[in-house]
């Protein structure tokens, strides 16, 4: 192999990066090549001179990352570490937990309708109720029951009163209507009677007039004869 072919291996050898196989190949050439030996020495010396330019310390401060992290970021990181992978499993776990929560909440939910208002109360983990609380709750329930009954009674009374008023009003109206009808019939009878009298009087007067005229005509006829 020529010296030119050895250039790459010379670099590997100079910087101690040569493989065992290449080292044998290189040394076989190197041992008998004066030119390569001289070049090696010269380049080694050049490399030594280069080392005279020593490192310096930076005389200033470099950027420092001082990122303020929000506590939610830490929470996200913690969750990312704790939660199983892949995401579908994570979502499954979260969905199950939420489902159980909702079931428990639904089991302890009270919905009531009182005094035209809906009331919803729900709780997951209710505390055990003490005797005092029980008495208090019983009293409260009794009061609520009485209030409910009272409310129903009042409502019933009001409804009955309204019904009675409606009934009285209806009967009064019927009576009034009957009175008006009767009065009207009487008025019509009176009118009819009056008209008959007029008719009768008129007839008599016409009869009289007729008789008088007949008598007058007879007299005229008698005179003319």
């Amino acid at each position, binding site marked *: 192999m020529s010296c030119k072919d050895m250039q790459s291996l010379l670099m590997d050898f100079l910087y101690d990066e040569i493989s065992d196989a290449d080292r044998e190949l290189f040394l076989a050439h190197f041992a008998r090549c004066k030119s390569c030996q001289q070049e090696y020495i010269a380049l080694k*010396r050049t490399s030594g001179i280069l080392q005279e*330019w020593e490192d310096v310390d930076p005389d200033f401060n470099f950027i420092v990352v001082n*990122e303020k992290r929000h506590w939610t970021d830490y929470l996200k990181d913690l969750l990312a570490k704790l939660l199983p992978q892949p995401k579908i499993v994570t979502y499954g776990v979260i969905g199950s937990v939420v489902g159980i929560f909702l079931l428990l909440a639904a089991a302890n939910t009270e919905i009531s309708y009182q005094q035209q208002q809906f009331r919803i109360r729900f709780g997951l983990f209710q505390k055990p109720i003490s005797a005092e609380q029980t008495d208090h709750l019983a009293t409260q329930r009794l009061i609520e029951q009485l209030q409910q009954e009272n409310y129903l009674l009042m409502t019933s009374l009001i409804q009955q009163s309204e019904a009675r008023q409606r009934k009285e009003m209806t009967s009064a109206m019927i009576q009034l209507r009957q009175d008006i009808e009767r009065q009207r019939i009487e008025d019509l009878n009176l009118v009819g009677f009056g008209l008959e009298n007029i008719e009768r009087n008129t007839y008599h007067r016409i009869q009289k007039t007729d008789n008088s005229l007949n008598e007058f005509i007879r007299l005229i006829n008698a005179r003319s004869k």
Partner: protein
Amino acid sequence: MTDTQLISSILDGDRSKFNALVWRWEKPLYNFILRYLGNRELAREVTQKTFIRVYQNLSKLRDVTKFSSWIYQIAANLCRDEIKKRDHRQFISLDMIQQNSDENGVLLPEELQQSPAQQPDVRMNQKQLRTIVQKALEQLPEEQRVVIIMKEYQGLKFREIAEALNEPLNTIKSRMYYGLNGLRKIFEQWQITEEVLPHEL
């Protein structure tokens, strides 16, 4: 904690761990950029930019074990951008090149305006030598210079350099070879021999 563990913590949300990453990397990264650009102010600026870009793009890093190559890749890209900008802004006058160049057209640093050959007994101090090395590196083509800096000073493997620069491995070794030989010639021309070094190699 290793870099990999730190990056995993950062990606898991513990952004404060980025400080540890900065403290670990600030010195090598700053020195890499300083050698690449040769200017402290610019090196500071580009180092900051590199860390910002690393912070912004850390989640896009596919293989965490290749962080070292990745961070140098970002730094090298930013350095290249800076050099392009600088090339637009600055130029060197032809007169200056003619006055300060040797017979091969290689720019001579001020330290060598009076050749060490003329003062054979004077050993150079560390600062002078540092400047000469810097000037010598500046003479190299950029593609060779970056490989030499990554290898000689950052101690990256050839494979890592290839990953950082996105070039084939053999291309990197070839650039290293020609770069080193280029420097060797420059040092020979400037008569930087073992005699002028402050200590023996």
